[in-house]
């Protein structure tokens, strides 16, 4: 933004990978469960309980249908973080076994650019005596079956690889990794938070044992998630994290969040019905966003794999401008940045760093994620304001000058302060 004031109208929402607007049809489905059908789904003696249980059962069918599972394989949780914790810690502790003649408890394979809700449970398991391998992606961000295969050991008990990355949208080789794990009789978990509801999922075809996802990333309410737990070929068992009334087949005790679960189910149903058309529409918008920005300015880079990416998400770096000042220039767009300058030493996104994106480019990245209500007019406005902000900042950037003089800034000896 060159001149003039920062607009004070409501910004354009392009942070759908962080959370989504709850679909009004979801809210409508939830409402009666607050004030009319407010029973405890575990109450077996009266109609209030039966109504609530019916609502939960319907949601279980809707969720199972979306992913090609049996309704009995759905475990309700508070969200994807809890689902990941239950899957990883629950499976590791249940299947713990060390290599012959050692005191180790078993080996787990994951990747460095997984979400913290996967990495932190793995770190905890390391403190409990498990061994963890963190795979490193190449520049395209992909984790392939070959990489996983190379890391497997005789004592590997669990593999956890996300379906699509939350920052760059890159799609890993999940069905192939699942097949590999099934052949080796290793439990396979995938954090599919950014994937389910957007892309076709079939836990049978794709060889999934455990799969986490969340309501609020697919136009449902916050505070409710699900964990798919395979029941046959093979039957997966988990050690519970929360003990109590034995809800959810003993894997997750606690009175069910009936309203949230009903909303989650409705959100699944809507996603299943609208996924194809929505994906196609958003892919067109994303391509317009990327291609127009890249056509208009130099040194603009898309992070992650060129093709194997979610249709609605893009992560773009703009060379020679700093991320926080870029965010300041696009106050009319609600999105995420690759770094936050809050101290003398910046910490750029660990996901971008794992791809080998230089610190300077990682600092200047934006994650823009489109959603059900994104319009072409919004994309056009976003293009305009991002381009203006980058151009404004480049007129001020000493690094852009050096670039234009043909000097490679990586060859200069900077003295950090």
């Amino acid at each position: 933004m060159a001149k003039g004031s920062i607009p004070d109208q409501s910004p354009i929402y392009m942070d759908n990978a962080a959370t989504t607007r709850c679909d009004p049809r979801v809210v409508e489905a939830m409402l009666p469960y607050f004030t009319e059908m407010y029973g405890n789904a575990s109450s077996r003696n009266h109609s209030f309980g039966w109504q609530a249980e019916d609502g939960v059962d319907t949601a279980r069918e809707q969720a199972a249908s979306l992913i090609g599972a049996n309704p009995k394989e759905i475990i309700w949780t508070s969200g994807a973080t809890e689902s990941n914790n239950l899957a990883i810690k629950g499976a590791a502790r249940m299947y713990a076994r060390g290599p012959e003649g050692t005191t180790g408890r078993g080996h787990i394979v994951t990747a460095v650019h997984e979400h913290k809700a996967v990495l932190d449970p793995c770190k905890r398991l390391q403190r409990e005596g498990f061994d963890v391998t963190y795979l490193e992606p190449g520049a395209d961000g992909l984790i392939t079956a070959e990489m996983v295969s190379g890391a497997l050991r005789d004592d590997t008990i669990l593999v956890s690889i996300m379906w699509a990355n939350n920052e760059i949208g890159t799609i890993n080789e999940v069905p192939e990794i699942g097949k590999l794990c099934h052949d080796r009789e290793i439990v396979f978990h995938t954090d599919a938070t950014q994937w389910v509801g957007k892309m076709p999922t079939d836990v049978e075809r794709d060889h999934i044992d455990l799969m986490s996802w969340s309501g609020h990333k697919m136009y449902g309410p916050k505070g409710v998630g699900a964990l798919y737990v395979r029941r046959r070929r093979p039957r997966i068992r988990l050690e519970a994290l929360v003990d109590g009334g034995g809800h959810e087949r003993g894997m997750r005790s606690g009175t069910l969040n009936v309203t949230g679960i009903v909303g989650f189910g409705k959100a699944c149903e809507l996603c299943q019905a609208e996924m194809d058309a929505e994906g196609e529409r958003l892919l067109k918008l994303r391509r317009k966003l990327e291609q127009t920005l890249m056509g208009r300015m130099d040194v603009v880079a898309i992070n992650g794999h060129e093709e194997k990416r979610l249709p609605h998400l893009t992560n773009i770096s703009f060379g020679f401008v700093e991320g926080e000042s870029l965010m300041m220039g696009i106050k009319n767009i609600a999105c995420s940045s690759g770094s936050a300058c809050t101290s003398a030493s910046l910490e750029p996104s660990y996901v971008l760093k794992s791809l080998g994106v230089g610190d300077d480019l990682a600092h200047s990245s934006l994650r823009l994620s489109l959603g059900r209500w994104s319009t072409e007019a919004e994309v056009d406005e976003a293009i305009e304001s991002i381009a203006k902000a980058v151009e404004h900042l480049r007129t001020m950037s000493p690094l852009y000058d050096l670039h234009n003089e043909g000097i490679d800034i990586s060859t200069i000896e900077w003295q950090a302060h």
Partner: protein
Amino acid sequence: MAYSDKVVDHYQNPRNVGSFGASKEVKERKDIGVGIVGAPECGDVMQLQIKVSDDGRIEDAKFKCFGCGSAIASSSLATEWIKGKSLDEAAGIRNTQIVEELSLPPVKIHCSVLAEDSIRTAIEDYRKKNGLVEEVKASAEATTG
């Protein structure tokens, strides 16, 4: 992060953005001192150029900045403040004055430090070019705190 109105104003309407020519030419010119501080991987690089008149006053100043809004505002403000000052007066500007003027929060104090350093480094560079210092540091550029 909420920015003060003054930071937003400098961000939107930066004062004295620019340089006195390509970096190689500027290096040769004796009437210009250049200070470049910071590093791209730290998220801020400031470049300050001062044009000094024969009577030792800063008659013009230009800045370029790769950095957050507070860094841009700090360097923009620095150019405003040093114009018309003698070298000694300009060297006396402290980062705390910049913090106060722009109402920078504690996490942004380093931006003001960088601006102070860029002034000092530019002055040192000018003096070095003109033989006005007895002992010249090996690397006057990018000497920072």
